[in-house]
C-alpha cells in the first residue's frame, strides 16, 4: 500500500499547490497609480454622454421606470440567467445604500477592473469586460455626472447564484481569460476616424458585444463570432446578428443603422424590441455624430453568420 500513501501524499501536495496557485491567480487586481493619475478632474456635461453610451440606467434604474425616474439608480432589476439571478445594485448617490461615498478611483476600479472598494470581484453581469476598454478620463467624466443624480435609499436584493458561480473569488480566474483593455477588432492604419470612434463606443462603454456576441461555456464572449448575435442570456429569445454576415444587417445602410438608433425604426418598418428598447432610448440621447460612428464601425466589423441556432420550424 506504500504506493497508495505516496499517491495520496502527492495528490494532497499538488492539490494544495493548485489551491494556493488558484488563490493567488484569482486575487482582485486594482488599477495602478499611473492609470489612476489619468482620471483627471472630470466634467459632468461630458459625463452625461458617457452615461447614456454606457447604458447605466437600463440595468440600474428601478425596473419599468420612465422619463426622469430612469435617473434614480436604485437597482433591483432581476437578470435571470443560466448562472442564476443577478440583481444590479443601487448605484445612486446614497452614501449608505448606493455609491455616494465612492471616490473616482473606486468607480474606475469597478468599471475598468471589476473590483469593489472593499476589494471583492464584481460579477461580469456588470459589463466591465467591455468597460475595461474605456479611457480613464471618460470614467472621471461619468463620475462627475453621477454626482449630479439623486441619492435614493434602499438596497437591492442580493444575487442568487448556483454553485460554483456563487464563489466570487473564482471570478479572478475568469478575468485572467476575458478581461482586457485592448480592442476586439484590430483596425488597420488609416482607418477613418468615425470607425475608430465607433469601435470605442461599441466595444467599450456601449458594451454591445455583451448581448450580441455568443458566449462560451465559461460565460466569456467568443471574439471569433464578435457581434454575430446570440441566444439571449435571459428568456427564450435571441439577440440579433449585427454584423453584415448572413442573417445580419448587411442590407442596412450606415444611415439606416444610425436612424434605428435614433428613432427605433428598422429599415423594413419594424420597431426596436426587447431589451434593446431601453438601449435605443439611451442611444437617442447621443449626438448624431456618435450614432454615425457606431454605424460606421458596424459596417466595418468582420461579417459572421448568425451566432445562434436556426429557428426550429414551428409547424
Amino acid at each position, binding site marked *: 500500500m506504500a504506493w497508495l500513501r505516496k499517491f495520496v501524499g502527492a495528490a494532497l501536495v499538488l492539490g494544495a499547490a493548485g489551491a494556493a496557485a488558484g488563490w493567488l491567480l484569482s486575487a482582485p487586481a486594482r488599477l495602478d497609480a499611473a492609470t489612476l493619475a489619468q482620471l483627471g478632474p472630470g466634467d459632468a456635461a461630458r459625463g452625461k454622454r458617457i452615461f447614456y453610451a454606457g447604458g447605466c440606467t437600463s440595468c440600474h434604474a428601478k425596473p419599468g421606470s420612465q422619463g426622469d425616474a430612469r435617473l434614480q439608480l436604485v437597482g433591483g432589476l432581476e437578470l435571470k440567467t443560466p448562472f442564476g439571478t443577478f440583481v444590479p445594485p443601487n448605484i445612486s448617490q446614497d452614501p449608505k445604500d448606493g455609491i455616494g461615498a465612492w471616490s473616482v478611483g473606486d468607480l474606475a476600479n469597478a468599471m475598468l477592473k471589476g473590483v469593489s472598494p472593499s476589494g471583492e470581484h464584481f460579477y461580469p453581469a456588470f459589463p466591465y469586460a467591455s468597460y475595461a476598454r474605456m479611457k480613464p478620463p471618460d470614467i472621471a467624466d461619468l463620475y462627475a455626472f453621477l454626482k449630479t443624480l439623486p441619492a435614493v435609499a434602499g438596497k437591492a436584493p442580493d444575487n442568487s447564484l448556483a454553485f460554483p458561480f456563487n464563489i466570487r473569488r473564482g471570478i479572478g480566474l475568469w478575468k485572467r481569460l476575458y478581461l482586457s483593455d485592448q480592442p476586439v477588432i484590430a483596425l488597420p492604419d488609416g482607418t477613418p476616424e468615425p470607425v475608430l470612434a465607433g469601435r470605442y463606443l461599441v466595444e467599450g462603454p456601449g458594451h454591445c458585444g455583451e448581448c450580441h456576441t455568443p458566449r462560451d461555456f465559461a460565460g466569456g464572449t467568443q471574439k471569433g463570432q464578435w457581434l454575430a448575435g446570440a441566444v439571449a442570456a435571459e428568456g*427564450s429569445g435571441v439577440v440579433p446578428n449585427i454584423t453584415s454576415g448572413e442573417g445580419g444587417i448587411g442590407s442596412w445602410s450606415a444611415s439606416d443603422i444610425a436612424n434605428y438608433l435614433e*428613432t427605433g*425604426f428598422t429599415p*423594413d*418598418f419594424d420597431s426596436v*424590441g*426587447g431589451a434593446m428598447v*431601453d438601449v435605443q432610448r439611451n442611444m437617442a440621447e447621443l449626438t448624431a455624430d456618435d450614432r454615425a460612428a457606431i454605424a460606421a464601425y458596424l459596417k466595418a466589423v468582420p461579417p459572421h453568420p*448568425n451566432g445562434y*441556432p436556426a429557428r426550429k420550424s414551428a409547424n
Partner: protein
Amino acid sequence: MGKLVIAISMLAVTVSAAFADPILDRQALMKERGKLVGGLSKVVKGEEAFDAAAVLTQLQALQANAEKFDVEALFPKGSDTGDTTAAPKIWEDMAGFKAAEDKYLADVKAAVAAAPADVDALKAQIGVLGSDCGTCHQGYRVKKG
C-alpha cells in the same frame, strides 16, 4: 407618395379579408402598421416630400388599422404556440398588453386629430407612436431568430 397610398389601400383590402388563423391575422395587421409608419418615416426623414393631405390619409389608415386590432380576438388562449413571436407575457399580463395597445390607439387618434401641418409636427407625432411600438415590443414580443 400617390403610389404608396394606392399600395396601402390595396394592402388594407387584403388585410380586411377575414383570416381563420389569429396568428396570421395579427401578423398581417402588424405588417400593415409597419408599412404605414414606414411610409410616414420616409416623410420625416425627408426622403419623400411632405404633403399634408397624403400624410393625413396615412394617419387615418393607421387609425383604421389600430381600431381593427381587437386584442381578445387576435390573441385567444392557445395562440401563443406556433409560428409566432408573441411573448408568453401577453397572456400572463393581458391587462397590461391591452393598456399598451389602448395607449397606442389613443395616440394614433390624437395624431389624426392634430393633422400635422409640417414635417416637424409629423416628426413629433411619429416619435410618440414609435415609443409606443417600443413599449409593446419590449415586453410582449420575443425575437426567435
